[in-house]
């Protein structure tokens, strides 16, 4: 199992804050592809321009990174702080 957390408008548009799914192997790009394939609204919500960064186990990743069982992944939309 892996845990996926959603932030900002993604949480609202997908109507989900976090979920746990079974994940055997694959990297962060595979995970995004898997989520986008759920249906059209997932595919739209997780479009390239709506994703600022992925975070694995509280570490921001800057390139596609392997995901393992037990990992916590967070999907961050573009930030608007300050």
């Amino acid at each position, binding site marked *: 199992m892996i845990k996926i957390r959603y*932030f*900002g*408008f993604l949480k*609202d548009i997908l109507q989900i804050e976090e979920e746990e799914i079974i994940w055997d192997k694959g990297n962060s790009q595979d995970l995004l592809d898997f989520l986008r394939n759920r249906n059209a609204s997932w595919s739209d919500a997780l479009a390239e321009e709506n994703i*600022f*960064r992925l*975070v694995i186990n*509280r*570490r*921001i990743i800057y390139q596609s990174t392997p995901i393992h069982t037990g990992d916590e992944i*967070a999907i*961050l*939309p*573009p*930030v*608007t*702080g*300050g």
Partner: protein
Amino acid sequence: MFSIKIQTAPFSQKEIKQKLPAHNCGAIVSFIGIVRGFDEKEPLDYLYLEHFPSVTEQEIERIIQLAKNRWDIQSCHVIHRVGNLKIGEEIVLVLTAATHRKAAFEATEFIMDYLKSEAPFWKKEFFKNGQSRWVKAKQSDLNEKGRWSNND
């Protein structure tokens, strides 16, 4: 000395100034960001600020480190508020002390530009008419960050 605080409570700048090292710093620059009320046609009631605990602090630490690599700064304090904020309330404080004023000015502006485009905060606007919406990221903030890679 460097510190990062994410909090719901208002901050006092005086409290921060007391933390500053007295040893030979000649310049203190501070930036305070405030909730504006009239950006849109619809009157704003309040802002809600979400963040990603621990990742936020990590990112701000990284941004301060980038500034330290670039300018000779002696201390830097960042406070960012989260939760519900009304019009006129202070959202963010960046306070930088350095021997010379140019370093203090540039580092503070750099930290703000990066904070706006890199730190995991998200604003949601709640309007007086009961509607709400997440704020869209601004291209201008990305541009302002971008200039730090072309300069010097």
